[in-house]
């Protein structure tokens, strides 16, 4: 076992998969010589050469489109989009193409690509280096959308994504990169996509979350525990497909549901989680399904005071959890 940060876990997963399978390569802006602006690909250029740690011109649609073509010819591209905010020029290639290639070819062709992108705010990145973009993709059949929240999961899910036969969007919350360390096994392992994880077992309220927000929930739960409120906490981990069974199970545990995400609330992925519950576990509910999420504004402003005002905090989360517990 070794102690690793989230960013190390990403890098290790890339390194090990590239070593395991020579079809795997990384491509993106500044991923080669520079080793990535967040340093997620550091060392790959040195270890695997410029073709497999491929510095790409500043063209996101081509990054994804060329990945699709390389995959069609038998490669396994792992594309980096420098910031999730900049995935938008590639939306046509992701949704019209990658997501539909298997279906439209009646299973003859496929698109086993991974698109990694750092998302989320709280790093003074302003409107365009702070966005959560997961909800723009979770609606789309043919895509898988994952958002691991721990180093262990980051490594295991990235490996699973690379080995997955279909396109996977792999969103890494950038505040997690260096936030916490965790013991990670030396041996190869994968964490399967599509499975949620119970982070804390509890009785009074159920909180569903993912990414950085999950850690706020965990901290808030510790506060609440001291007040005698016991929280059941589920880390969604994969947002498409959702782990229906795990969610419905978690609902049953307490009957009181709070969904927490950093992304703005209206039609965020929390809406689907809520709708799933309201459809399939209605009679397990003891209270309205609550959501705590970002405000209905484009993204986090640069000004630190505005950024702080936007962000979820342990206090805000604790307050929402408390209100639900008291319901």
């Amino acid at each position, binding site marked *: 076992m070794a102690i690793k940060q989230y960013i190390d876990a990403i890098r290790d997963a890339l390194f090990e998969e590239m070593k395991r399978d020579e079809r795997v390569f990384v491509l993106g802006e500044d991923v080669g010589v520079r080793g990535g602006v967040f340093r997620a690909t550091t060392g790959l250029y040195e270890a695997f050469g410029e073709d497999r740690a491929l510095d790409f011109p500043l*063209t996101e649609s081509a990054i994804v*489109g*060329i990945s699709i*073509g390389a995959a*069609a010819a038998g490669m396994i591209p792992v594309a980096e989009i420098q910031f999730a905010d900049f995935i938008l020029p590639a939306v046509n290639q992701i949704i019209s193409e990658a997501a539909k290639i298997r279906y439209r070819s*009646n299973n003859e062709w496929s698109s086993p690509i991974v698109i990694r992108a750092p998302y989320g705010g709280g790093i003074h990145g302003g409107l365009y280096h702070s966005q959560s973009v997961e909800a723009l993709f979770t609606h789309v059949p043919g895509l898988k959308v994952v958002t691991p929240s721990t180093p262990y999961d980051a490594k295991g899910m990235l490996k699973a994504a690379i080995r997955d036969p279909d396109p996977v969007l792999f969103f890494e919350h950038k505040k997690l990169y260096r936030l916490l360390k965790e013991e990670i096994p030396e041996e190869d392992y994968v964490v399967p996509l599509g499975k949620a994880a119970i982070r804390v077992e509890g009785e009074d309220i159920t909180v569903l979350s993912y990414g950085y927000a999950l850690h706020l929930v965990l901290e808030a739960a510790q506060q609440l525990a001291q007040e005698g409120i016991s929280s059941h906490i589920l880390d969604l981990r994969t947002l498409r497909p959702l782990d229906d069974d795990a969610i419905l199970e978690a609902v049953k545990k307490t009957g009181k549901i709070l969904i927490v995400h950093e992304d703005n609330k209206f039609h965020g992925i929390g809406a689907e989680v809520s709708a799933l519950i309201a459809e399939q576990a209605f009679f397990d509910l003891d209270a309205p399904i609550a959501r705590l999420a970002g405000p209905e504004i484009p993204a986090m402003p640069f000004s630190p005071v505005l950024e702080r005002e936007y962000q979820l905090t342990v206090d805000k989360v604790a307050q929402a959890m408390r209100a639900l517990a008291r319901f």
Partner: protein
Amino acid sequence: MNEIPRHKTLELSDLQVTEMYRYMVLARMVDERMWLLNRSGKTHFVISCQGQEGAQAGAGLALQAGIDFVFPYYRDLCLMLMLGHTAKDELLSVFGRAEEPNSGGRQMPGHYGDRKLRIFTGSSPVGTQIPHAVGAALAAKMRGESYVSFVSFGEGTSNQGDFHEAANFAGVRKLPVVFFCENNQYAISIPARRELACENVADRAVGYGFEGITVDGTDPLAVYEAVKHAVDKAKAGKGPTLVEAKMYRLVPHSSDDDDRTYRSREEVEAARQKDSLLHMKSYLTEVGLWDAVKEESLRKSLMAEINDATTYAEQAMNPDPKTLSRYVYAEAGEQ
């Protein structure tokens, strides 16, 4: 005439050029049948290759079916036939039958794809196939394989961002890809001068650091020569080429279009005089490979083939509605 015939100087055999012509006529006749079926209410949609057969035949002859990766667009019926699809395949497709090789009836006609022939599956949003082709070329270069990637698209599509981004990357990495622009003068109703301010689409190649060539798209041998040059160059590691073939779309954009609303009949008539089929027929006649008897017998045999194909396609099975939700993702056990 004791000059060496042009096709011989291009190292093409008599059989190759007459076959080329055969495919052009076959494509035209299949296309006409598709319109007939549409106008009689039997099928829902046609998108046509008429006017572009010669260019496609020239390009197709320069490719190795099943070895080179091909990323066609919706007008490439003649190209598809040259690569190995049959009249029956494409007639099955206009009926949306289960058996059609492009998509099992899932996609509209003209949305080609066939894995065994290395023809990648296409979609409708124009231009998305261009980066795909560059990606396959990248894979060739990374693994030291010697196939080329061939991608076709209209001149209107050369304005899309995807063309620009993909061409640029191909230029930077000197990838083995042939960009084939079928400039048929229109993007639906918009004439070339309203879409493009450059003289030739091929002028754009200089902005990507590679060669651009404009050829007469109604002259199949000229197109063959240009594409063969591009293919050989690509295989020699000398990077991409943009080949622009100029011709004219002889029919409306699709069965949903009415081209009388935006172009004169005189203009269309004038273009018909320069049809690549006429061009090729007179060339073959000139060099003594063709005559009226051969023409008649060819058309007769193709008509029989198309009639059979139509009957077959009309009676073929539809996809099973129970398959509607299959293959969104790999199914259990598949990779």
